[in-house]
């Protein structure tokens, strides 16, 4: 009889787990990335018009900020469960919940970015003949990019972490591994998946930081 391997001993760190379950781990990681990218992507598409709306109209602003604060307060497990009757036990339910959370962060940052554009800049742009539309697209939004990027980074990192709760709906990417490891007390599975989630969050943050540097070269000196 050979010595029991790390899987039999239920070690926290186990190379055998990685090799024997590699397909499962890759699939879970891919699902995790897809869920995150789709959620933050849709969140961004919705946050831009909402942020502009909140910036232009005072009434829209209090409504948008109030709703987003309330939404963000709702715990993730409750959010996914409340969406259950609408979209069922599907990845869509997870995405909708994650979109709502990322939207909350993103709208605030779009608004903050637009509000931080100096009044002199807006005035001189208007003075040189920019219309309302081109002022927004060519002056205000580009200058709001750093704040927008800060929002995207925060939203992405928290979405990576929140996706794990999607495991309750069977669609949590690496969270699925954590959930199944919980039921079987499989230590290597839980630790590996956790480390991968944190690594994904850090990688995504660094990648976005890289993109931000390319897109906003004037910010480079200011870190």
């Amino acid at each position, binding site marked *: 009889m050979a010595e029991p391997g790390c899987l039999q001993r239920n070690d926290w760190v186990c190379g055998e787990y990685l090799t024997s379950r590699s397909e499962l781990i890759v699939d879970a990681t891919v699902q995790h990335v897809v869920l995150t990218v789709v959620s933050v992507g849709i969140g961004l598409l919705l946050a831009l018009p909402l942020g502009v709306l909140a910036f232009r109209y005072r009434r829209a602003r209090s409504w948008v900020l109030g709703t987003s604060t309330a939404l963000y307060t709702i715990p993730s*497990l409750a959010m996914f469960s*409340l969406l259950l009757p609408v979209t069922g036990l599907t990845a869509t339910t997870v995405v909708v919940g994650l979109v709502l959370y990322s939207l909350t962060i993103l709208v605030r940052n779009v608004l903050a970015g637009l509000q931080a554009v100096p009044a002199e800049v807006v005035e001189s742009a208007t003075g040189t003949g920019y219309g309302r539309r081109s002022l927004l697209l060519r002056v205000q939004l580009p200058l709001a990019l750093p704040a927008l990027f800060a929002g995207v980074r925060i939203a992405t990192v928290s979405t990576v972490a929140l996706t794990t709760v999607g495991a*309750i709906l069977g669609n949590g990417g690496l969270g699925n591994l954590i959930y199944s490891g919980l039921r079987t007390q499989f230590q290597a599975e839980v630790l590996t998946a956790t480390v991968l*989630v944190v690594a994904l969050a850090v990688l995504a943050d660094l990648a976005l930081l890289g993109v931000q540097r390319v897109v906003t070269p004037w910010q480079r000196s200011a870190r």
Partner: protein
Amino acid sequence: MSAVTDVVDWFADPEHWTGPSGVPTRVVEHLGLTAAALGIACAVAVPLALWLGHVGRGGPLAVNLTNIGRAVPTFAVLVLLAIGPLGFGPAATVTALVLFAIPPILTNGYVGMREVDRDVVEAARGVGLSPMQIVRQVELPLAVPLLLNGIRLAAVQVIATATIAALVAGGGLGNIILLGFGTQDQAAVVSGALLVALFALATELLFATLAKALDPMARVRQVQTVPDP
């Protein structure tokens, strides 16, 4: 619209309001977990934030803690603690809750202390206040709004995590949701989720009221907004 009536029926059922898995018991459990975790987190983080803010050190530490807290999934930490040395039970849950409650309190408390006008602190020192008096009578009152904001963020975080804790160690409102999942009872799932959401929103409102009552500058601002005669 049967989903809505099902939920109404769920709330109307007296059976859901008594016994160890009734709504009142679960609310008390949730409140207990939240209060214990928030209390411990405050006991650790508030003095530390005040001290670091007063001496002006540890800023990067406070900021990095928040970033790490955001990247680490609460669900994963709960599971790791439960299948690890702490075992399934309230010890694992409260430890996880405390871990995630500390960063927002520490960061906001620190920033609150640092943002106190240095001239005001200099003036306090000039009129002969001791460092302890400066902290208690000048810096702390002015840092209260941000400190309270940190505690509010921590509370919201703790309530959310305590819900997920039902997956791991039992207790709290998350159990109503989970039981619903287990028995394929959608009305129970939605009712539990509604209760959790209400609990969280009520906490948010409580802190909003508290923040208004404790903001030392609120009265000053009010006076300033009175129009000239």
